[in-house]
């Protein structure tokens, strides 16, 4: 049986494979989407090292230099802003982020948003492949599931499943087993500036809810790391063991991970009241801003683009030891 869905514009029942609504003609397939970093390899620009104008992907066909990656990529989707930055210490960006929107049927209510941030695990080869594959597959699956029914928990699990499969097959061409983290959110705005936020997580990238003060900022996800396990078991957050285990992952996506690497308890839904910000980020940011309140301060009172840039710049000034990725989603703002 083909699962049925309703048109987000007019509620007409449509088949999931339909590209347009038979009732109102609205496009069902082309939910707007973005994914960064863009043009990781391959561009028509001449080689910046030797001027070779012949087309090449990764390595210049004359001087052999690997094309330098852009330091940063920034994308906007609706009111949301995503930034990924190579940082200072790493020569490649192995983070990735993706987002997509589904138009709400009520024009008064903002669009449904699905967003995912992935951090390629540096110890695996070609980790960026896993991060790119998992983030885009996760967003596509979340949007497809949300379009069928407005059940965000089911959609989040569908996203986790698709992201896991995508990361696992990302390295099959090259024989490597790239792996990555995955943190995702589905934001379903409701009337009156409130929104239902569903998060899911594998690894140590994070999601936060950062309301305008004085309401307290908080981390929505729990890291799958050795450090978190020690803290849960009662160790002090400042202890040496916790510091050393900070980046040892206990769960991840990739060819060498469990078939279902996520914890069911990582999927949670909360209702938030704006104004405020849902933030997704990789550890390249929170390493330098471990306290949610400090992150909130940088997001408060500025537009999403300014907030995303301020956060990225903060991490760069603090040392930029890792790739930095942030997704800033304003809640309850005027559009």
């Amino acid at each position: 049986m083909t699962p049925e869905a309703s048109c987000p514009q007019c509620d007409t029942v449509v088949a999931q494979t339909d590209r347009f609504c038979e009732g109102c003609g609205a496009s069902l397939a082309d939910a707007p989407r973005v994914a960064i970093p863009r043009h990781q390899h391959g561009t028509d620009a001449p080689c910046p090292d030797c001027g070779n104008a012949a087309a090449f992907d990764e390595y210049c066909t004359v001087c052999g230099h690997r094309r330098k990656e852009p330091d940063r990529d920034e994308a906007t989707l609706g009111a949301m802003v995503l930034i990924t930055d190579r940082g200072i210490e790493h020569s490649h960006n192995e983070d990735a982020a993706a987002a997509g929107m589904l138009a709400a049927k009520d024009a008064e209510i903002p669009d449904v948003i699905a967003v995912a941030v992935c951090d390629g695990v540096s110890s695996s080869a070609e980790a960026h492949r896993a991060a790119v594959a998992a983030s885009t597959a996760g967003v596509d699956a979340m949007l497809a599931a949300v379009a069928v029914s407005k059940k965000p928990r089911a959609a989040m699990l569908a996203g986790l499943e698709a992201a896991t499969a995508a990361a696992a097959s990302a390295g099959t061409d090259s024989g490597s087993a790239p792996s990555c983290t995955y943190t995702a959110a589905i934001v379903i705005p409701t009337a009156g500036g409130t929104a239902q936020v569903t998060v899911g997580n594998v690894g140590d990238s994070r999601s936060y809810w950062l309301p305008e003060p004085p309401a307290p900022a908080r981390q929505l996800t729990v890291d799958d790391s050795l450090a978190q396990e020690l803290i849960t078991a009662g160790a002090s957050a400042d202890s040496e063991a916790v510091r050393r285990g900070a980046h040892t992952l206990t769960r991840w996506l990739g060819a060498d991970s469990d078939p279902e690497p996520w914890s069911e308890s990582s999927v949670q839904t909360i209702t938030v009241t704006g104004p405020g910000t849902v933030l997704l980020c990789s550890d390249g940011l929170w390493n330098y801003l471990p306290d949610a309140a400090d992150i909130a301060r940088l997001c408060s009172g500025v537009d999403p683009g300014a907030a995303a840039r301020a956060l990225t710049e903060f991490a760069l000034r603090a040392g930029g030891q890792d790739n930095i990725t942030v997704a800033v989603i304003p809640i309850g703002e005027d559009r």
Partner: protein
Amino acid sequence: MSSAERHGISVDVDHNPYLAEGSGTVDAIVSVTADVAATAAEPDRVEAIIIDCSTSMQAPIEKFEAAKRATAAAIMELVDGTYFTIVDGTEKAASVYPKEGLARASTETKAAAMRAVDGLRPHGGTAMGTWLAHVRGIVGQRKGAITHAILLTDGKDEHETPEELGAEIGLSEGEFTCDCRGVGTDWEVDELRAISTALLGSVDIVADPEDLAEDFASMMKASMGKSIPDLTLRLWTPAGATVEFVKQVAPTVEDLTHRRSDGGNQCGVYPLGSWGNEDRDYHIQVSVEPAAVGREKLAARVSVVAGEEVLGEGLVKAMWTADTALSAQISRRVAHYTGQAELAQAVQEGLSARKEGDVKVATAKLQRAMELAVESGNDGTAKLLRGVVEVDERTGTVQLRRDVAAADEMALDARSTRTARVRKES
């Protein structure tokens, strides 16, 4: 189905990609593995067997009888349909069977060839260049076939100048491959090695004529197992780079550096000969212009090519780093094969010094060879070395043996290029 699918060629690169600031020398071991599917179309095959029929072959007469039996054993191994010729080599060369051109192997032609071989009598001198020229003239009729020759001799090349032989070797390069065998101890290892190296074949001594038949049969069997006529290695390097060397390092050391021909687009092309189910390792050293710390360059792109079709490819990358712990590492396989190439050279130089009576140099070279052979687990070469030098088990120093069997010395020389594979990590 493309031939890349029929012939599964894989290319693996093993090297340390990290370079220190300002450094530009990149070493890599490139392993090429051919997995030839049984369903592959049978290629055309051409075989030539050259029997030395100089008068010395009848001293003793058992030697010539053994050569005839060995030739018969090789003929027995011919797969039906293979084109073949048997050549009588003296100061000139003549076709024994068929009398002209090539025969096609069948029960009848094989029996007729064996009868013709049985009727051979020693009757002249030795001029190997004319043998090669004769074979070249015949096998040239079947272009694109897997073309292989076996050359047997018992003596030195006497009835032509070294220049004449060299010229004929040069003209035969790329026309056919040639495995060379010397029977007895009156032939020159260097002379046969010059032929086998240029013609991408092997060289060995068969000291006892009784062992010839088995050796010929196994050589022919191996040749029948080849099913890819001609592979070439195409090496792309970046502008400003120098290819320092390209050497086959396993199963034997063969320097291919000077075999380069220009392939255009910053590529050099090296002949790899014919292939069956097998793997060979190559050591490539390239000097590139150093890039800034943090940057990455492609130091070489290694492609295995049949005709114009790329069957396999490997990338040799170079990354510049300020971390000396990374840049100081040497790939285990690079280190191992560097040692194996040095071992082959030490054996050859040691033996040549010994011949010239330079005991001091000979002892030093052969001692170094013994150390390298033992260290790297090259038991074959170590065993052969013990036939030429005595090792003081306590100090590890070596002394040249006073009485060395000529056959032992020639075996060590002929087999000096055989390498050991890298030992598995324990």
